[in-house]
């Protein structure tokens, strides 16, 4: 789930958690309204990691886990499993007040995963984490999702999450701009594709001729042996066929539109319409 600051990501999460009542419409989580008589039933099936994690600083990590485990009726073994999984078991007897940001985040994830919740909700879980921790975080989220559970999280770091997610919701000013799988969206948006071409040691005249021909497909920028060709989505395959048929190319890479590009494109569309 992505969107600008104030787009409504946290509000949506609060609605899902039953922290707020919707001003109109209904909220349904695991087939029930999160507010009302099914509240506890639902809360046992969800794990939540808030944006800024401030556990009681005077408790140890283990004490917090035990507290949550008791409320979720989860066994003691699961505490150890989840703490090992998120790599925080080494600090379980230290006060949370002494934890670093990354450690708090991992503890937050550990408590949320207690009891293997069917739905895991995280509000900007990666903010303030170093690249390594982020990767570990996303990998454990991916594993959890592959086990048949739902993982919903909000983020700003679009490029980071792109390879881990399979569904995307884009919010803007409180409304959903898009809600579908990533592949489908790239396709429907049909963003221009950049082809990076590394030329071989062909003659200068042949190269120039090759470049001139390339220009019919789209915009070309080149510097020494590397050229970037920006082609419209509809010309992508034709351009690729042409490039691979010449002698002047040593290598090529396809730079697909990133989430970032999709995001900017969408907001632009929204702005113009």
């Amino acid at each position, binding site marked *: 789930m992505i969107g600008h600051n104030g787009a409504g990501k946290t509000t949506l999460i609060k609605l899902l*958690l039953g*922290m707020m009542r919707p001003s109109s419409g209904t909220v349904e989580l695991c087939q029930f309204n999160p507010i009302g008589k099914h509240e*506890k039933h639902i809360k*046992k099936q*969800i794990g939540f990691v808030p*944006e800024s994690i*401030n*556990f009681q600083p*005077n408790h140890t990590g283990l004490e917090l886990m035990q507290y*949550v485990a008791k409320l979720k009726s989860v066994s003691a073994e699961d505490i150890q499993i989840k703490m090992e999984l998120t790599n925080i078991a080494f600090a379980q007897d230290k006060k949370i007040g002494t934890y670093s940001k990354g450690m708090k985040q991992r503890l937050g994830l550990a408590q949320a995963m207690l009891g293997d919740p069917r739905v895991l909700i995280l509000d900007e879980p990666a903010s303030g984490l170093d690249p390594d921790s982020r990767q570990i975080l996303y990998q454990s989220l991916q594993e959890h999702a592959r086990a048949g559970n739902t993982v919903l999280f909000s983020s700003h770091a679009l490029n980071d999450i792109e390879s881990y997610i399979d569904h995307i919701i884009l919010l803007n000013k409180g409304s959903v701009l898009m809600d579908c799988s990533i592949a489908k969206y790239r396709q429907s948006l049909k963003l221009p594709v950049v082809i990076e071409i590394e030329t071989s040691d062909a003659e200068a005249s042949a190269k120039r001729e090759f470049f001139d021909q390339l220009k019919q497909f789209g915009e070309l920028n080149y510097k020494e042996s590397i050229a970037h060709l920006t082609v419209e989505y509809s010309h992508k395959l034709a351009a690729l066929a042409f490039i691979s048929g010449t002698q002047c190319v040593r290598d090529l890479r396809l730079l697909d539109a990133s989430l970032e590009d999709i995001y900017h494109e969408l907001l632009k569309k929204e702005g113009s319409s």
Partner: protein
Amino acid sequence: MRELRNSLSNRYLITMIIILAALGLTLVSIGSSTTGAVKVDRLTVQVASLSSLSIFLVPLIALFISYDSVVGEKEQGRLILELSFPVTRFEWLLGKFLGHWIAVIIAIIIGYMIAIIPIITSSELEAKSILSFARLIFSSILLGGVFIGIGYVVSVLVKQRSNAAGIAIGLWLVFVMLFDLALLGLLVSDAGKGLSASQVNGLLMANPIDIFRLMSLSSEQVNQFSAMQAIGEVSTLSFGLLTLSMLAWLIVPLFLSFILFKRVKL
């Protein structure tokens, strides 16, 4: 349980006990010098002094630990996490209340026990004075609960922690000082002449501190050492009735805070 453990590790509780015990002991030592040769049970005198201590300290302590319990957790972003656990809002606040109250109860009992050690060890005790001491402890505990509940109402209503602190101090002033000043003023002035005993009783019931005063000083021996003597004579309220109205003061604010808390947007 969690809140109690929290208070323990926060050292609030220990501080509370030390304050109550230290002030209590001071009163005991001062009190024994004034009694001199008067043939009165020393514990009875002390109950009167300790009850004045309770009037100031117990509401202060109770408000101090409760005023930020909702708004403070909210400000730190902890509330939304805690409420994502499988607890209802009602259970969460009730658990907090029980924890806070137990902490106050422990502080009162231990603090006052320590305060009367010099008396127990140095003089004979009458059954009557033990009863009045027990009454003091009982009514102090109720008073603590009342002000924790009042603190919660403030905490739920207010948007910022600092505002909650200000309002809590204001309430303390009103209940502990201003209300009685106003009441005394009224009784002394011409307007007060026409007040019947039941009207005075009604006015006293409007302030949990006054109920506490009547409860802890209701035995006649204690009464003669306190400034409440005059009112004590007017007031014909029984201990049971006083306890009931104290319980009402305990339940109503607490109930109000539960209802308000249900509606709080996070």
